[in-house]
Structures are given as C-alpha cells and as structure tokens.
C-alpha cells in the first residue's frame, strides 16, 4: 500500500492520459469500421448449425468416454458417484417430505396444510406475524394456481442447495474474513464463478453428475456459495477493529474473540448473506430445469419452448410468488437481527403466543398427514388456468391492437441498432474484429491486458464458433447500450431525487430477486420468439443493477462538491453534466461492467426463445446427443466472451486508480 501511495499520479498526468485514451479509442474504432467495410464478408468463419469442427467431435468423444468410465474409473466410483448419491439422497428426502412422496407413500410426509402452517410458524419465529401471514397467503396462492407439487419441488431443491451452500459458504467466509491471504486466494475463483453466465456450467456439470437433482444442486451451489461466502467475509471484516483489539487486550483467545465479539456483531450482515444465498439458489434452481431439475422451472422451460405464453406466465407467477415470500421473510429476519440490541426486547405475550402457534402447527401437520383434503391441495387449479388464459388473451389483444406499436419497436431497434451492429461484427473477417478487441485491451490496460485480449480472441477462434460468438456479442452490446442509457437516465434521476428513490428502489430490489427466466415470459408474449425478445428481457434483467450502481455513484458525489457547484450558479443540467456525472465516472464504468455481465447471462438464455448465437447452441446441446460437443464448445465460448468483456470494462473502471506515471 505504501508504494501505491507514493506512485499515485499527479492530476496533470491523469488528465492527459484520459484524453489520450479517448482519442485512441476513436481512432481504433474508425480504423475497425474502415477495415470491416473493405474486407466485408471475408474470413467470417461462418459455421452451419449442424456442422462440427474436430474440437466439437473431440468434446463429443470426451463426453462418451466419461459416460463409459462412469462405473469403472475409481475417480467416478469413489468421488463423483458418491457425491451424486449423497445429494440425490438429500433431495429425495426433502421431496419425499414436502412434495411428491415416495413409493411407500404416494403423498408427501407433510401435506399442503401442514406446510403452510410450518411456513407460518418459521416466518413468525424469524420475523413477524405480518410477514408470516404474507408468506402463508403466498403459499396458498401457489396451490390455487394449480402448481403446488411443482412449487414444493422447487422449494425442496432450493432448500437442499441453500443448506449445502451455507454449510460450505459460511465457514469459508469466516476464514476469508479472518485471514486476508486466504481471501486473496479465493477472490479470483469467486469472481470467475460470478462472472460466468449461469447457463454455461450446466452442461459440464451434467457430464460428471448426469442430468437430474444432483447436477441441479451442484450448479446451484456454484452460483449460491459465492454470495454466502463473500457477505460472511465482509460481515467479519466490518466488525470494528477496536472491538477486537479491546477484547484481545483483555486476554481473549482468538476463538473467544471470534465467538464472543466478532460473530455476534457480524450476525446481522450474515443474515443478509443468507437472504442473498436463498435468492440466488431459487434463481438457479429454476434455470436448472434445463438439466432436468424438477419443479416450476421445468414448467416454464416446457412452455417457453412450445411458445405457450399463458402457461409460462402461470408458472412464472408462481416463481415470482415463491421468490417474494422467501426474500421478504429473510429480509425481515435480517432487519430483526437489529444492530440496535435495545429494541430486541421480547414482550411478555411472546411465550404463550409461541406455544399456541406451535400447538396449532403440530395439529395442522397431523391433519395433513392423515386426511387427503389436507394433504393434496384441493381443487383443480382453476385459478391457474384462468391466469394462463387471461395472459393469453391479453397478449393476443395487445398483438392484435398494438401490432403496429410492437412491430414498430421491434423494427426500429432491429434496423436501427441490432442489424448494423450484427452485420459489422458478423460479416467482418475474424482477424479484423480480433485486432480491434486486442487494440482495446492495449489502450485500456496496457500490454498485459492486450495479451489477455489476444488469448481470448485466439481461444474464441479455437472454439470454431467465431461467427455465433459475434451474433451473441452484437445482441449483448445492443442490450448493454440500452441498459447503460437506462442506467444513466434513471440512475441520475433517483440519485438526485430522494422521493423517486424511495418509490423506485423497492421495484429494483424486487426485480433483482426474480430468476432470470421469468423475464423472458412477458416479452415473449409481446414480441414473439425473436432475438429482440431476448434483448429486451436482458435489458430488464440487467437494468436494476446498473441503475442502482449509477444512483449510488451520483449520491456518492461529496456534498461539498455539489454545494460549491450550486454556489457557483450551476443549473440542474450543468450540475448533472459537468459535476455529478464526471465525478461519478467510476460508478458509470462499474454500471457498464455489471450491465454487460448481466446482459450476456440473459442473452444466452434467450437461446431458448429463438435468439440464435451461442445460447441456441448450448440449448441444442442439451437436447441433441450429436450436438453435445458443440454445445460444450459454445459454453466455453460464452465464458471466454464473458471474461473478455469483464476484463475490458473492469480495466476502464480501475483506470483512474491504476495509471502510474511510468506507464502512462
């Protein structure tokens, strides 16, 4: 740190390096467009949908080899298969308990009435009676939608994944919080796990663990452990050092300091981490439907692939309800683990109330194990059918009456943005586009980032899917542009306006809780199975993160600066353009980075609804045996694209801190 302090550039160097970057980027882009036009259509590396390269064949064979050695190779028999059996056991125990029952008992151990009662009790215990009522209503609604069993399947998988994530994530997080070296070691792995679009590790995991609950749980772990771990580490680290020092000065052992000082003070933040873990797990469990995870996700996937808007809306609604219930109850729990212990005074009525509620719960659980009406959710899901048909009717109506509007939007964006971008990227020679990407790396991060870019470009070339990758990149860039514009406009607005922030932020928070999948549904209804649907879904999925980062950036501009600018007589517009946006430049770069990562994740999911590109190949790999290798290669290409995008935008975000006079 000491050396960093010394090598901090003088402001003069900073200004020079900034304009120098802007000039070089424009020069590079001009050269790129010129060369792209000159060499248009040459060396585009287009590959037909059913054609394979040697790499794809090799990956296919690798998959076959893994299949063959599943029961002979000791690595499989002793490690992989054991893990698989353990997780499958855990999941089927949970499903046996709450959703499908077993071969001995065709209904689950606890029926719907019992589960609603248990949910009520648990939520009451961890938060409040109000949230408990909300949770119970939500669960009953799941049954009324006619999706009780599917919902419980999703819940069972989520629970299994959450329990395992916490068992692994919290202790590791505590270690990371205590030992900076350990944290430093974990950080790149965590970064990678979070940058990687969720879609791409589905196939590799199934190679080892086959499709089904075990693979679904493992992919969910990959996605849900990082937040648990990270937030726990933050929680431990944010305990004031003075507390720990005081405890040490009084003769605490390390363990005593952890148990009596650090953990009690970190509790609240750790609960926030649990909330994030649950949200992440639910999102991933629904996506894992693509590899045969049971539950609501499966209904959505089936409906999406058959373009059944009504049915997918119905299941999407169920996912939203589940997400809201899980999120609200754990958020309320986090709020209850108050940092101010003085509020947490139990009232004298609490104990009798608890006993009463507990007895009622036990009674309802007993009923649900004994009587069919309390076990299997009654009714035929008429409400669900009504929801589905209304959704169908509304989309039909919109498509009928607003066809000009929806088509207008589609056409404007398609002809104005997507097509030019796509033709520029897809129809230029790979080496021209590749050189441009490498050039960006050199400008943003020097030779080192240039080398990283070069490696990514070569690897992308190596996957044999250059052309498809460019299709995906084009859609990603278009969606990212829209996302960032939205991020700036709404972010600046709510960053400057507290009241707008109060209204909009809960919406954004709710938006981030919903699984990615759900966003495809309404847009599919409006715009049909096109890449435009995928782009719009990606924008809606990515916008909350960008907007929040931007708003926080604007709000983070020191009051002294805005005060000085106001005193100098700035108009609001001047304030935004000349003071707040430039000061929040780093937030803008971060918002772009996060926007791109989120967008890429969603664009590839859009492969399900006809978005083409790499996402489509991944989906095709799930369903067609001979395209499995190509699907794997497409997954790889997505990862490479993700790393490339992330590194480039991160470099811009960090530019202000890292440019040293020696390098500039």
């Amino acid at each position, binding site marked *: 740190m*000491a*050396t960093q302090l*010394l090598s901090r550039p003088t402001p003069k160097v900073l200004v020079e390096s900034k304009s120098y970057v802007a000039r070089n980027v424009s020069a590079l882009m001009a050269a790129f467009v010129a060369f792209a036009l000159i060499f248009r259509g040459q060396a585009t590396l287009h590959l037909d949908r059913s054609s394979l390269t040697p790499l794809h064949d090799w990956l296919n064979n690798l998959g076959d080899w893994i299949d063959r050695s599943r029961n002979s190779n000791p690595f499989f028999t002793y490690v992989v298969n054991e893990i698989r059996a353990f997780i499958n056991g855990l999941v089927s125990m949970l499903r046996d308990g709450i959703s499908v029952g077993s071969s001995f008992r065709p209904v689950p151990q606890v029926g719907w009435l019992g589960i609603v009662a248990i949910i009520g009790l648990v939520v009451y215990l961890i938060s409040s009676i109000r949230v408990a009522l909300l949770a119970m209503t939500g669960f009953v609604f799941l049954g009324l939608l006619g999706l009780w069993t599917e919902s419980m399947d999703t819940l069972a998988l989520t629970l299994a994944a959450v329990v395992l994530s916490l068992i692994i994530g919290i202790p590791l997080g505590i270690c990371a919080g205590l030992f900076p070296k350990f944290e430093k070691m974990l950080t790149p792995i965590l970064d990678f796990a979070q940058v990687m679009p969720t879609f791409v590790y589905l196939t590799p995991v199934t190679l080892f663990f086959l499709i089904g609950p075990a693979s679904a749980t493992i992919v969910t772990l990959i996605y849900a452990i990082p937040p648990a771990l990270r937030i726990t580490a933050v929680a431990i680290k944010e305990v*004031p050092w*003075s*507390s720990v*020092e*005081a*405890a*040490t*000065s*009084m*003769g*605490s*052992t390390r363990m*005593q300091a952890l148990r*009596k*000082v650090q953990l*009690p*003070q970190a509790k609240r933040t750790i609960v926030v981490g649990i909330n994030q873990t649950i949200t992440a797990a639910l999102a991933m469990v629904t996506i894992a439907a693509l590899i045969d995870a049971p539950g609501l996700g499966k209904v959505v996937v089936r409906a999406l692939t058959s373009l059944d808007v009504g049915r997918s809306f119905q299941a999407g609604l169920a996912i939203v309800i589940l997400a809201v219930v899980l999120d609200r109850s754990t958020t309320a729990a986090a709020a209850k683990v108050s*940092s*101010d*212990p*003085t509020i947490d005074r139990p009232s004298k009525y609490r104990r009798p109330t608890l006993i009463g509620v507990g007895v009622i719960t036990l009674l309802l659980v007993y009923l649900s194990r004994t009587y069919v009406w309390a076990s299997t959710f009654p009714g035929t899901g008429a409400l669900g059918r009504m929801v589905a048909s209304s959704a169908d009717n509304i989309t039909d109506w919109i498509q009928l009456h607003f066809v000009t509007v929806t088509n207008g939007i589609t056409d404007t964006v398609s002809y104005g943005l997507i097509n030019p971008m796509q033709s520029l990227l897809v129809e230029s020679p790979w080496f021209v586009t590749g050189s441009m990407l490498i050039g960006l790396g050199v400008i943003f991060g020097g030779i080192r980032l240039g080398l990283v870019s070069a490696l990514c470009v070569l690897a992308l070339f190596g996957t044999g899917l250059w052309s498809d990758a460019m299709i995906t990149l084009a859609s990603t860039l278009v969606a990212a542009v829209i996302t960032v514009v939205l991020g700036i406009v709404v972010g600046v607005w709510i960053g400057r306006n507290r009241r707008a922030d109060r209204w909009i932020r809960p919406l954004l928070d709710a938006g981030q809780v919903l699984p990615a999948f759900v966003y495809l549904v309404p847009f599919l209804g409006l715009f049909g199975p096109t890449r435009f649907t995928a782009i719009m879904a990606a924008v809606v999925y990515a916008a909350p993160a960008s907007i929040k980062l931007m708003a926080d950036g604007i709000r983070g501009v020191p009051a002294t600066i805005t005060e000085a600018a106001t005193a100098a007589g700035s108009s609001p517009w001047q304030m935004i353009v000349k003071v707040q946006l430039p000061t929040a430049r780093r937030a803008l770069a971060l918002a772009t980075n996060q926007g791109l990562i989120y967008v890429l994740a969603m664009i590839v999911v859009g492969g399900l609804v006809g978005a083409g590109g790499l996402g489509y190949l991944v989906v095709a790999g799930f369903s067609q045996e001979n395209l499995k290798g190509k699907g794997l290669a497409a997954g790889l290409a997505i990862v490479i694209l993700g790393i490339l995008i992330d590194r480039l935008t991160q470099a811009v975000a960090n530019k202000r801190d890292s440019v040293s006079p020696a390098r500039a």
Partner: protein
Amino acid sequence: MSAPMISVRHLWKVFGPNAEKIIGTPTADLSRSQLRAQTGNTIAVRDVSFDVAPGEVFVVMGLSGSGKSTLVRCMTRLIEPTQGELELAGEDILKADAKRLRELRRSSFSMVFQHFGLLPHRKVIDNIAYSLEINGVDKATRHKRANEVIELVGLHGYGNAYPEQLSGGMQQRVGLARALAVDPKVLFLDEPFSALDPLIRRDMQAEVIRLHHELGKTLVFITHDLAEAVKLGDRIAIMKDGAIVQIGTPEELVAAPADEYVENFVRDFPKSHVLTLRWIARLAKDDEDLSGPVLPPTISVRDASRQVLEAGRPVRVMEDGKLLGVVDSNGILSVIAGIGS
C-alpha cells in the same frame, strides 16, 4: 526509588519487510519518507527507554504519527515490538508465551481506548465483566465485581443499558470500569478523552485523578494535549518520529525544553501555572535591596505574582534558610506575558 513497575529498554518497532535488519544500521537514521521509499519500512518506535515507578502517572505525549499509540500497544504486546526489553513488575513481558500473555492481560494490566472499544452487543455490565467471563469466573461473582466497579466510576443505574444508549463520556466511564474490573497493577490509557468534548474531558480528567488517589494504580497515559499531560502527569515523555526527545516533570519541560520541538509544544502553554520561583529566581545584584518578603522556591509564578508585584522591591526566594536568589516584577511579568525566558 523502589524497583520500577515498568521498565522499557531500547524498544524498537519497525513496520515493513526485514524489520530487524534495519535496526543499528545507518539506514535506520534516514528520514521517514526516504526510508519508506528505499526499503518500504516505517520506524514507529525508535530506541525508547524509560522507567515508571509504582503508583506514578506517566504521560506519553506527541503529535499524531509520533508513535505514541504504537508504543503503548508494544507495551501490551497488541503489537509485537521488533527489538528491545520490557519488564512489568519484574517480569520479562517479551518472553511471555501466548498463554502467559493472556493471563497477564486478564489480571495484571488493562487498557482504555480512544474510541472506547466497547462491545455494542453487550450490556454495560457484561462489557465490564467481559475479562472475568473469559477467565471462567461464574456469572454471579463477575456481576458482583462489575457492580462494584460500576459504583466506583459513577455509573450507578446504567448496568443494564447498552453502550450506544450512553453519551461519550459515560461510554468512556464504562471503558475505565472495564479496565479496572480485573484490579490490574498497571492501566494503559490510549488518548482516552480525545474523542470527548472539552467540558466532559475536564470531568473525566478529574475522575482519573480521583481514581488514582483512591486506588493508587500505575498509569501510562497517552495524549496529544499538553494541558492534559501537565494536569495528570507526574512525568511526561515527549515523542517525535518514534523517539523520546525529553522526559521530565511538567515544570522541567516548560522551564527547560530540550529542543525546538519541545519548545514549540510548550510555547503557548501558560507557563505561570507550572513554573515555580526556583526557575526564575536570579542572583541578587551587589547593591540590591534585600529587605523584601520571603517566598519558598516551590510556589508557582501565578500564585506568587500578587505578592511580588505588590512588594515594590525584589522578593527573596529562600529554601532552608538559604538565599537562592531574588525575583522582581520584571521576572514575574516576563513569564506571565510570555516574553523571553
């Protein structure tokens, strides 16, 4: 003087790589920024030696960054010293292993922190009882002891409050009570009142003086405030860039600053409060009128001013019947007005 309670000899703390190798080489004499640029090291404590007598209030004073906080942490080994010797009540603290060190912390010395370092999730009484708790004392006993200390520091009735419900001054009383709970031999106070506003600070200083009278503990008190140092300290050590530049009684520092740095410190201090006649008495001139009143050399300039100014002739300063010198109006005025020395 009896055996010292604390004895510090040639204590060094160097942060950064290969810290031990720098001590004793010419590199150690480089300026702070040069050293950091060359080796990446920072010398926080530089060859510090002093003794503290039992029952003494020893104040370490310096500007921020002078190494005083690091020094006090080295003495409690919250920071490991790089080199040197350190004895507390005759025991070599640096030789203590982790277990012995914890025992010492639980019984022999305790610390009060600038930002209180209270545990926000525990009630006042459980904060105070913490070190007894981790020492395995049962709840009834430790609460009994905690209540005694609560009375002692004037926190009666606040045992069941949480720290954040208290004002800053009250919080630091909890800090004091917590440090006193184990009945330690030595109390280390690291700028305990710097975060408090001036009126509360004055109360708390009075409180420390009272507690010191009642309990007679040895105190090592860190501060950046000369007034506080003079008010509390039997002796004061002034630190600069990790080294002690002068150790002495308040009077000695004010009257005879060792160098410009100390002089800058004491320049604006009202010298008349501290200086005694001993320091300003001059030899009588041959033809001087020696019929003026007699005063002892230990009386402060401020207290003597009225008599000297009213006398209208030089006042004799006498000790044990011996004439040490004379003081006249000019001598008094020059101290009060801060002219010359």
